[in-house]
C-alpha cells in the first residue's frame, strides 16, 4: 500500500530530511520511501517508483512530500510518526558542545571556555552548594531547582551581589539573556524592552505579547518568586533593574511581580526613581499608590503592562495601550453575546491553568464580572479552595502547584491531569465555561494540539452548552507555531483570545450575560 503526507510550505534542513529518509528505509514493513521537496522533477521520480498519489501530484515546489510504500497500514503510520518525531526534534545546540557530557562543573567550563552563566537544575538540596561554586568561578546562575532553603537563597544572592553577578531563582523557570531563551521561554523578537520578573509565566506572557505586537525584548531576567519577600528583599530584582538601567539596548523597563512585601516595595520603588528610563510595573493583585516618577506607569494586568511597554518602546502615546485592549474587548463582547445566547443559563466558571501567574491575573479580572472566585492559589486567603480536586462555584486552579506536580511533569509539558479535569468538569451540569491557558515555547509540550484536542472534543460531547475559552502564550517562531495551535483549537470549538487577560474577560462576560436569563 502507498501512503503519502504533504507538509505544505515546510522547510527542513537537508540533514534532517536525510535522517528521516534513512530512518524510514530501515523501518520494518516499509518497502520503499521518498522524502523530497515536491518539485516537478522529483514528482516524476516518485511516479516512476510507483509512490505517486493525488496528494503528491497536487503538491508544489515548496512542499515536502513524504511517500511510503508499506506492507500494512500500521507500518505506514509508524513511518509517518517516526518522520514527524525526527522533523519536530529540536535542533542540536552549539556546534562547540559535542555529544560528550561534562563530568562536572570544571569539565563543563573546560568544554565551553568563556561561559559566564550556569543553569542549575538538580535536586534542591544539592543546588545551593553547586550555585555557590559557580559564583566562585565568576559565573551568573539561573537556579531552576526549587526546594532550596530560604537562608541558602539569601546567602547566594548576597555573595553574587558582592561580585556583581546575578542569581536568578531558585525556582526560576524563565529567562531570555542576549536573545537566548533559557528553560521555559519563547522565541521572541529582540528589541528595546527589558523585563525583570519574579514570575515565570508572567515573564513569558509579557514577552510574548510584546513580541506579537511588533516590539522586542533586550533582556528578560527572572528572579524567582521568593525574591520579593521580606527575607530576601528583592536583591535580584533590584540588581536586574540596575543592569537594565545601564544596558544601552534597553530603553524601557518592565517589572512583573506578585505584590512584594510593603518594605520591599519601598526599596524597589526607590531604585525605580533613580532610573532615567521609563518604567512600567505590574504587581498582580497589588497596587502602587505612590507617585514614583513622571515616566513610571503602573498596570493592573500583564496585558496592560506589556502594551504600555510596547507604546513606550515605539514612542507612541501610552493611551494607545488602551486602544489595543479595547479592540480585544469588542471581539470578546461579540463572542460573549453569541455564547450566552446559546445557553439556557450560565452558571459556573472553572479555570484550569498550567501557569501560576495566570491564576493570579484571573483573580484580578474575574471577580468584577462573576463575583466570588475561589482558588488553590488565592490572592486573598479567605478565597482558598477547601479541596483542589472538588471544585465548587467559580474557581480557578493552578495545576503547577506542588499538590498536582509531585511525581509528574509540569502541566505545561504533560497535559494528562488537566485533560482529565477538562472532561470531569465538563460533565458537571453547573459548569458553563472552562477557561484554559496553553503555553508554548521551549520546554513546553511540543504537540499541544494532539494532546489537548481529544479532551476538548469529549468535553463538548458531555456538555453541549459548554464554552471553552483559552489563551495561547506563544509566537510564530516558537517550535509549536502559535497560529497553528490557535487554528487547531478554534477548529475544535475553543474561543481563543490573544492574552490571558482577554480570555478571562471573555469567560467572565459569558457568565455575566448568561446568568441574567
Amino acid at each position, binding site marked *: 500500500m502507498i501512503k503519502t503526507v504533504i507538509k505544505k510550505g515546510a*522547510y527542513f534542513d537537508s540533514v534532517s530530511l*536525510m535522517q528521516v529518509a534513512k530512518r524510514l528505509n530501515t523501518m520494518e514493513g516499509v518497502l520503499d520511501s521518498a522524502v523530497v*521537496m515536491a518539485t*516537478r522533477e522529483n514528482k516524476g521520480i516518485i511516479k516512476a517508483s510507483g509512490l505517486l498519489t493525488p496528494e503528491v501530484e497536487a503538491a508544489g515546489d515548496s512542499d515536502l512530500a513524504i511517500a511510503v510504500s508499506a506492507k500494512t497500514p500500521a507500518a505506514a503510520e509508524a513511518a509517518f510518526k517516526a518522520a514527524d518525531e525526527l522533523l519536530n526534534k529540536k535542533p542540536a*545546540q552549539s556546534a562547540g558542545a559535542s555529544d560528550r557530557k561534562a563530568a562536572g562543573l570544571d569539565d563543563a567550563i573546560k568544554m565551553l571556555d568563556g561561559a559566564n552563566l550556569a543553569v542549575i537544575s538538580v535536586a534542591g538540596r544539592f543546588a545551593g552548594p553547586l550555585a555557590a561554586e559557580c559564583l566562585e568561578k565568576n559565573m551568573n546562575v539561573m537556579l531552576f531547582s526549587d526546594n532550596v532553603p530560604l537562608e541558602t537563597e539569601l546567602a547566594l544572592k548576597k555573595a553574587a551581589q558582592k561580585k556583581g553577578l546575578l542569581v536568578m531563582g531558585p525556582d526560576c523557570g524563565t529567562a531570555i539573556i542576549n536573545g537566548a531563551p533559557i528553560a521555559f521561554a519563547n522565541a521572541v*523578537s529582540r528589541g*528595546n524592552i527589558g523585563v525583570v520578573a519574579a514570575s515565570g509565566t508572567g515573564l513569558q506572557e509579557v514577552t510574548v505579547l510584546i513580541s506579537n505586537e511588533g516590539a522586542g525584548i533586550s533582556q528578560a531576567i527572572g528572579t524567582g518568586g521568593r525574591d520579593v519577600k521580606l527575607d530576601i528583599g528583592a536583591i535580584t530584582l533590584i540588581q536586574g533593574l540596575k543592569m537594565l538601567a545601564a544596558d544601552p539596548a534597553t530603553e524601557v523597563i518592565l517589572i512583573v511581580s506578585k505584590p512584594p512585601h510593603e518594605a520591599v516595595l519601598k526599596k524597589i520603588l526607590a531604585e525605580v526613581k533613580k532610573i532615567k528610563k521609563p518604567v512600567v510595573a505590574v504587581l498582580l493583585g497589588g497596587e502602587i499608590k505612590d507617585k514614583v516618577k513622571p515616566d513610571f506607569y503602573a498596570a493592573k494586568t500583564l496585558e496592560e503592562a506589556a502594551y504600555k511597554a510596547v507604546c513606550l518602546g515605539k514612542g507612541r502615546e501610552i493611551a494607545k495601550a488602551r486602544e489595543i485592549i479595547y479592540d480585544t474587548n469588542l471581539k470578546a463582547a461579540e463572542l460573549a453575546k453569541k455564547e450566552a445566547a446559546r445557553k439556557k443559563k450560565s452558571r459556573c466558571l472553572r479555570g484550569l491553568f498550567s501557569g501560576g501567574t495566570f491564576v493570579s491575573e484571573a483573580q484580578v479580572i474575574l471577580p468584577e464580572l462573576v463575583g466570588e472566585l475561589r482558588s488553590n492559589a488565592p490572592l486573598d486567603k479567605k478565597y482558598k479552595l477547601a479541596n483542589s480536586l472538588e471544585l465548587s462555584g467559580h474557581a480557578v486552579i493552578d495545576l503547577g502547584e506542588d499538590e498536582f506536580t509531585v511525581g509528574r511533569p509540569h502541566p505545561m509539558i504533560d497535559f494528562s491531569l488537566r485533560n482529565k479535569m477538562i472532561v470531569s468538569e465538563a460533565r458537571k451540569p453547573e459548569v458553563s465555561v472552562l477557561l484554559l491557558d496553553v503555553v508554548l515555547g521551549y520546554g513546553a509540550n511540543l504537540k499541544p494540539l494532539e494532546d489537548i484536542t481529544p479532551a476538548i472534543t469529549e468535553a463538548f460531547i458531555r456538555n453541549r452548552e459548554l464554552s471553552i475559552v483559552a489563551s495561547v502564550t506563544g509566537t510564530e517562531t516558537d517550535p509549536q507555531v502559535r497560529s497553528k495551535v490557535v487554528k487547531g483549537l478554534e477548529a475544535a470549538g475553543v474561543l481563543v483570545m490573544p492574552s490571558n487577560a482577554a480570555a478571562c474577560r471573555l469567560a467572565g462576560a459569558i457568565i455575566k450575560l448568561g446568568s441574567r436569563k
Partner: protein
Amino acid sequence: MELISYGDSIPEGEYSLHSAFANAINFSRGSLIVSLVPPRAGAGPLNLVVAQLPPGAKKLRSTRFYFYVDENRLRKEPEARYDSAVPENADPDKVLAGLDALKDMLVRWAPPLSLAFIFDPALEKGFTRTFERHLLASFKKGVSHFRAGDCERGVKALRGLGLGLTPSGDDFISGLLAGYNFARLGMRFDTAARIERVYFHAGGSNPISDSFMRCSYEGRVNAKVLRLLKALSGGSRAELAAAAKAALASGHTSGADFCSGLVFALTEVLHNRGE
C-alpha cells in the same frame, strides 16, 4: 547582537522571515534569500554572520550603512564585508593538477546518495531502494546530456531533482555555474555563453536553491568554496584536503553535489582548452 561579517551581494530593502533552522534563519525578499548564520556556518555572499543566532528574529532590513534585525541595528563596517568574488589570476595547469586530487577526495569523502558517483561508478551501489534507483537513473540521464554538450537538456533534467532542501540537481547546477565562472573570471576562459545557457534554464525549485544559483551565476561563492578554489589554484595538498572537507560538510549531500558540479565544469573546460 554582534555582526561578524556580511555578504557583498545583499541588496538594500526589507526582508521577511522565510524559514528557521539550527544553523540559519532565512529571510526573503521576492525570490532572494538572505541568511542570518552563526560563525560555524561561515561567510557567504548572502550571509550575515552573527556571534549568536537570535532565535525569534522576524524581520531584516538592509540600508546603506546598517542592517536591522528586528530592532537591533548592526553597522555595516567596511572591514566586516565579505568579498565573495571567485579568485582571479589562477594558473590553469595548477588547477588541473588540483582537480585530479579533488576528484579523489570527493569520491572518498562524499556522503552516500550524492552526485559524486559521476566520478566513480562504484558509488552507484549506495542507491539501493526503488525510489533511489529511479533517482540515480534520472541523475545519470541529466549528466549524460551535459557530457554530450547539451546544457539545455542537462539543466532541464537535473533542476529540482533529488534529495534535500536544495535538491541535489540544483546544487550540482550551482557548482557548474561557479566552476564556469571560476574558469571565466579566474582563468580567462570564454565560458560566458555556457553560463548564460545553464542559468537560463535553471531555477524554480525554491527560493533557497534559486538564491544559491543566482550567486554562482554572478561568480559569487561562500567562504568554504572560496577557500577550495584558492587551494585548487596552488595551495598545498594538505590545504586542498582541509578545504575539500570543509566544503563537503555543507548540508547533507549539498556540499558534495555542489563540488561535483564544480569539478565537472572545470574538468570540461580545462580538458577542452586546446580545442
